[in-house]
């Protein structure tokens, strides 16, 4: 009794299957290609309207109770690092900043400056006591500095040239090697203009 109508259903299903499967397979393939060709997670160069411009002011009182301005370190490469003691990627990148600072301490050609974002001076002090790091750290009234640099989500790092120009913005945790590579890149004679590349 199930005659021709019942026989037609599996045939129709068999025809429909490739029509559904092929687009799904194509989408999956495109996804794999997209994920395979993307920049790896972690630190990335990011676009910023500030790149190529004079660095916005970074000034305030440090954890050591000293007055700090960017002018104090003019002539050195400056790594302006926005961080939070509550932020896991910031905790992960911290040893790299310590390594970077130690490597440049004697030459005095580069320094780190940390600016706390949405944090309390007490927590920031404990963060540095626990994890080390001997460079200027601003922890109070830093909202204006963060907005001045267009900070969205920490950690964000800006590389400022010895002449005070922002040459790169990096989002995510940085490494000492990456910072040195960028400094080498922009110190090389051919490097005339900063790159404002991918995000």
């Amino acid at each position, binding site marked *: 009794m199930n005659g021709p109508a019942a026989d037609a259903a599996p045939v129709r299903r068999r025809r429909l299957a490739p029509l559904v499967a092929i687009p799904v397979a194509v989408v999956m393939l495109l996804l794999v290609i997209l994920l395979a060709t993307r920049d790896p997670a972690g630190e990335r160069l990011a676009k910023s309207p*500030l790149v190529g411009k004079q660095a*916005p002011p970074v000034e305030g009182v440090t954890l050591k109770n000293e007055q700090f301005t960017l002018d104090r370190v003019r002539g050195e490469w400056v790594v302006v690092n926005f961080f939070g003691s509550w932020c896991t990627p910031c905790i992960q990148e911290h040893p790299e900043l310590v390594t970077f600072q130690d490597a440049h301490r004697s030459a005095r050609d580069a320094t780190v400056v940390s600016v706390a974002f949405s944090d309390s001076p007490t927590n920031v002090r404990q963060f540095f006591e626990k994890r080390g790091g001997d460079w200027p750290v601003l922890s109070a009234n830093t*909202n204006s500095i*963060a*907005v001045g*640099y267009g900070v*969205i989500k920490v950690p964000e790092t800006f590389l400022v040239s010895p002449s005070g120009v922002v040459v790169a913005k990096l989002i995510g945790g940085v490494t000492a090697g990456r910072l040195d590579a960028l400094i080498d890149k922009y110190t090389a004679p051919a490097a005339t203009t900063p790159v404002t590349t991918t995000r």
Partner: protein
Amino acid sequence: MNPRWRSIGWVGALTVVIVALTFATLSHHSQPTNAERSLDLAEQFACPVCEGQSVAQSDSAAAVAIRAEIATRIDQGQTNAQITDYLIGRFNESISLKPRATGVVGLVWITPVVAFITAVAGLVVVFRRWHLADVAEASDADRVLVERARAKLAAKARP
């Protein structure tokens, strides 16, 4: 009631409404407080970390910092345009929920107007063409046909 008095009553009521609305609008916009300006401006910027929320609505750290910066700059006497330029210069154009009317971004405002005018002009042209197409002119052949028909009718009408 005399219709004349009724008309005067309506005109009077309308006048009162217009005056009240004008007064309310002007008194509201003439002297906004710094807090009102701050809130108004914060509503014109997108929270940079949260989709679909303005700086005024979001409690993210970035939004809180931007709100504080807007308030500080208003207290310093900066204009809305100065504050807008500052924030766009730091975060880029995408932070603004109200696209500017200048440069390439201005196309956002101009394009719909141009599209509307073009569409209206197109409709006018099409309707005119349709209207002209409806007015058909009789050809010589048509006239001959009509004359023949009239002649037939006249012949039938004769006794």
